């Protein structure tokens, strides 16, 4: 058994906090759908503080010398935007052309976050909903980059397919009336969700693979054999 030591524990701690902050946006919709709280309350008391922490870590990473974390957050942001655009092309096509989704997720998140459901979507709720939808995408991309570093592009596919499977078995699809894996809706639902997540993976994997190299996955970067810990060699 190799003796290991922690390298750069401050950056590792900030990375773990950034991972927790990035996971809040995807989690609140599931928590609200499961009945733990309203989306509006979770947005106010969990999402906004998480976004503030996320932003603060990104700003602090340069003066603190957290190079892996700073680059990971920047690549995660760019990859998340690109991947969400790719996902949306498939999702909107499925929803508009084939009626394969029970509703527009960004609009739904917007009216729930702004506590505006009864009045339907408007400009403000749509801005909030789309911003949250992109924050989800950036969150998943950031988690991918911070955990796995810069793996081969195809590795994003099993990662996003796992997200799709968790989504289709989450309370979100039940409260939307689609049922688990779209059982109460349409076979096109599963097809749209899987294709949209594959499109997300292709964009994510390609942007990350073309980004500046991150020094390996999180466990290899911060956990080093004791003999290397003092030398700064990864």
């Amino acid at each position: 058994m190799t003796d290991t030591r922690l390298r750069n524990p401050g950056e590792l701690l900030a990375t773990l906090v950034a991972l927790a902050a990035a996971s809040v946006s995807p989690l609140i919709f599931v928590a609200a759908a499961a009945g733990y709280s309203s989306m509006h309350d979770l947005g106010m008391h969990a999402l906004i503080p998480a976004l503030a922490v996320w932003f603060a870590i990104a700003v602090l990473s340069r003066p603190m010398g957290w190079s892996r974390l700073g680059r990971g957050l920047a690549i995660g942001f760019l990859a998340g935007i690109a991947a969400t655009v790719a996902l949306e092309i498939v999702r909107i096509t499925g929803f508009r052309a084939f009626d394969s989704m029970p509703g527009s997720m960004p609009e739904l998140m917007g009216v729930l976050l702004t506590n505006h459901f009864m009045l339907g979507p408007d400009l403000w709720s749509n801005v909030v909903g789309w911003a949250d939808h992109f924050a989800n995408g950036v969150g998943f991309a950031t988690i991918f980059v911070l955990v796995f570093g810069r793996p081969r592009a195809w590795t994003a596919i099993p990662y996003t397919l796992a997200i799709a499977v968790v989504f289709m078995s989450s309370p979100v699809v039940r409260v939307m009336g689609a049922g688990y894996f779209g059982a109460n809706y349409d076979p096109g639902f599963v097809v749209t969700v899987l294709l949209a997540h594959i499109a997300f993976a292709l964009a994510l994997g390609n942007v990350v693979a073309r980004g500046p190299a991150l020094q390996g996955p999180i466990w290899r970067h911060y956990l080093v054999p004791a003999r290397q810990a003092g030398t700064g060699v990864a």
Partner: protein
Amino acid sequence: MTRTRHAFRHFAGLAAGTLLLSALALPPALGATGATFVRARSSHGFSGTISALKKSISGHGMMVMGHVNQAKVLSMTGLHLKGGESFLVGNPRVGKKLFRMNPAVGAVLPLRMYVWEHGGHTWVGYFEPSELLDGINPRLAKPGQMMDKKFKAILTDATR
């Protein structure tokens, strides 16, 4: 062959007659809840009717306690209705009195008025308050009848 055709005609005539009698025997606007659905066609357009209804509600001493824009909500599912909005209508004084009589009235109050567009016309409708309240407790039917008059007046003014 002729006998068969004659028998078929006789059966078809009987069936049609039975259906017609059944239809005539049913109250025309009795919903599944057992309450009568009162509706009127508005002489205004959709937004004009909404505005007239709000004024009429206020003019008859009631207030809009809630608003649901069903057409907009449904637009998120891809269904685009020309218009469909509900207003929860009540009055704190009447509400207090009825809730004191029976707290279960919350299942019905505040009452709901619905404005929708269909066939190029705007309609306003609601379920008869007395019948909804009677469903909770027959003692509530009497104050419900006062609400019937109030709602009828609101409807008439809003759609005129």
